[in-house]
């Protein structure tokens, strides 16, 4: 009897340890899960509904941040400055996950995105270029966007800095 209890105890300790290790955080190499229509955007707290605009990043701690608009991701990152292991965005054409550092971004006030940032991502440079010329947009890289997060657009124009600025 004592032996059985000992074995059970041993097994359960291993089970707990194993479980804790297995749950220790998201791997940056796996695109994160988003429940469309249910998950909230970490930046604007709205629901993430459309995959092609959705973005996410995985921090070095294994935490996942999710966004309904690629532009929102850069705004959020600028506010929080967390060390990021990987950025993930969707290919606008196919709505599949692609690595943020390998994506080609198009920015145009004529692209309607959920929060009006006007940024979408492409896997292929050629797709991006043809879309940019169609919408009169600029081709950007991840580094560009990290350095200069896009501003939300108001009525199709770039929004002017607010009177008195953003809340201190």
């Amino acid at each position, binding site marked *: 009897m004592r032996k059985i209890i000992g074995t059970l105890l041993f097994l359960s300790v291993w089970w707990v340890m194993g479980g804790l290790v297995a749950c220790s955080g998201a791997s940056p190499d796996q695109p994160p899960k988003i*429940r*469309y*229509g*249910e*998950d*909230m955007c970490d930046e*604007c*707290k*709205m*629901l993430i*509904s*459309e995959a092609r605009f959705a973005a996410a990043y995985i921090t070095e701690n294994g935490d996942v941040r999710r966004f309904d608009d690629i532009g929102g991701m850069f705004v959020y990152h600028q506010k929080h400055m967390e060390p990021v292991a990987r950025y993930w965005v969707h290919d606008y054409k196919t709505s599949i996950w692609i690595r943020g550092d390998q994506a080609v971004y198009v920015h145009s006030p004529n692209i309607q995105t959920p929060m*009006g940032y006007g940024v979408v991502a492409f896997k292929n440079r050629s797709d991006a270029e043809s879309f940019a010329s169609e919408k009169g947009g600029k081709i950007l890289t991840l580094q560009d966007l990290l350095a200069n997060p896009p501003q*939300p657009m*108001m*009525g*199709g124009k770039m929004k002017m800095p*607010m*009177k*008195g*600025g*953003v*809340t201190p």
Partner: protein
Amino acid sequence: MRLTLPALLLGIGVLVSPGGSTVWTVTPGGPPLQAIIEQASPGDTLKVQAGSYSGPLVVTKPLVLLGTGEPVIQGHGQGSVVKLKAPGIVFRGFRVTGSGNYLDEENSGIEVLARHILVEQNRLDDVLFGIYLRRAHGSIIRNNEITGKMLDLPRRGDLIRVWYSDSVLVENNTLRLGRDVVLWYSNHLTVRYNRISGGRYGIHFMYCDDANIYENQLTENSVGAFLMYSRRLHFYRNFMASNRGGSGFGIGMKDLDDARIIDNLFIDNRVGIFIDNSPREIESRCTLKGNVIAYNDYGVLLLPNVRRNLFEDNTFLENEEQVAIDGGGRLVNIRWNQNFWSDYTGLDLNGDGFGDIPYASQRFFESLMDRHPILRLLLYSPAVQALNFAAKAVPLVQPDPKLVDSLPRVKMVIPVGVPAPPKHKDPTLSILSALLLGVSIGFTFLGRSRKGRFGSIPKNPSHKEAALPMSERPLVQIKHLNKRFGSLQAVKDVSFEVRPGESIALWGPNGAGKTTVLRCILGLYPFEGEIYIDGLSVREHPKDVRQKIGFVPQELGLYDEMTVEETVTFFANLRKVSQSRALECLCAMGLEEHREKVVKTLSGGMKQRLALAVALLSDPPLLLFDEPTSNLDRAVRESFFELLNDLRAQGKTLIFTSHRFEEVRVLADRVLVLEQGHLVADAPPLEAASTLGWKTKLRLYPAPADLARAYSHLQAQGFDVQQNGSALWVWVLPTEKMAPIQALVDAGIPIQDFELEEEGGRS
């Protein structure tokens, strides 16, 4: 009044009103509706009769389209169904159905693409987008009923969309199963009296200034109203309940300036009011006044950077967390004044309607949760309540108050005039609850009935057959029985057989293994070796074997709280014996007049007889007794003993343990002697006693004068003798009890009296 030529050609009725415009009557059998639209002149009226008409319909001139009897415009699942492209169109009384499914193309029921269009009293269903306004300033969307497509939320469209359209009135529409009512880039809107449910954002404002939003019902959406990037929104007397989707806000306020949120009801949402970066401009402030915020998971959820808001005269009723700060911290520059707080513990002794001490929101676990949201998992756990309680008791660990309301109300302020859905009058819950209650109480009565007849009794109980005398086969066969308790070997390699009708005594000192053997026979615990009762292995057929055995233990395990009758009835049921047989057994044991008595109150002898009555229920061929008379006083012991003798005479097979030689001698055919688990002898009682050298104590009473002579004579004859007062104690073999008396008589020493003391024995 005259008929125009084209109208005659088309074969439809046309009336011209005195003003000069024409009234066309359109019927389903006639020419296509679109053709008539092309035909009509601006300002004409089309009276469309009930029936089905094919879409899409494009109206490019200011016509009045009036449906009579709800004509259907059918879009056949392609594109948008109706497009209104000229200012001043009136579109009233239609059913519009079957738009396309493409989100990208924004397939709609009705597209409103010019100013001052009135869309009224229409019913839209199976449409992706409902009514879509683009640059439609001054239009009115009124009294429409719009139902979206049964799609997953991300694939649905907006049931009303207002895009770059100022001064629009959206009034008294009923919307179900859409995505949002979304209003972008449009100023001076009025949204009132609408009922919106089952969507994503009931009302969603983006970049719309100076709107009035009032008396809407926003229920069961993901978010009731999500208001963003707008100035001077006046939001009042709206009813927001059960908005519990992903974000689950009653109202979400993001980047709003000078918003006035007045007299609304926020009930049972995940978050009553969510505030992020509102106000954003340094001179503006938001006012939240007179609202009822009740039964939400969070009453108000603020981001820590929110400043310059006024919360006044609101009622905070029983929210799981009245006010929460996302990410923890303290609120700065937010005024809380004269609100009602259901968790306020102060009093109003001066009766001015306000509490005498300020309300401070400082629950220990709440501030912990605000800072470490992961801990929310532990919400509702008793440990959390205990923690809050402990923190209250020990003020040292109290967190800083999240907020302080210096003048809390002690009575709720309920706004009037807020539209609310009619009270549910569904009796289902009451009925089901009553049913549950009834069944549950029924169970307790089931348990309380003292006379239970537990199921039917088989017609031909098996014990009849078992009671018949057996063949030559032994009733009990024990082969190499071993039983070990831990390191103690209680029974070592015991083998014996008992033939039907035999009576066997197990003899031996305490700890010799007698009781263990009995328990093994009953299969009460695992053992090594084989035991067969009437040819059945105890190990494999424990139930059948126990049916053939009646057992009376030494420590009676009867249920104290049962009556005598209940006891026999209970065991009779387990033994599949009829009620009448149970009564018969009671009578046989002389217990019939005690049947109502509770076992606890019975004397030892009566309990013993009750146990015997139970043992006899199934008329088993084999009866086991463990020290049957040890707990009884002498008189009772003797009458019980007689009972056993009767049973033996009836042909029962008996196995009993005993340490009274008298019982053994009278009752047993054979004695099995156990010593330290070993079977050391198996013989008739006297023989066993002789071989084992057991001696019986005789007390002889010679005349006092003869005492010394008798003593020395017996000693000389080699008897084991001892003088004790006026008596001589002589130990003899049970088979030779007469010998000392004979010896004394032979020697001419008379014996006046003698006693036999057979209990115990001495070897």
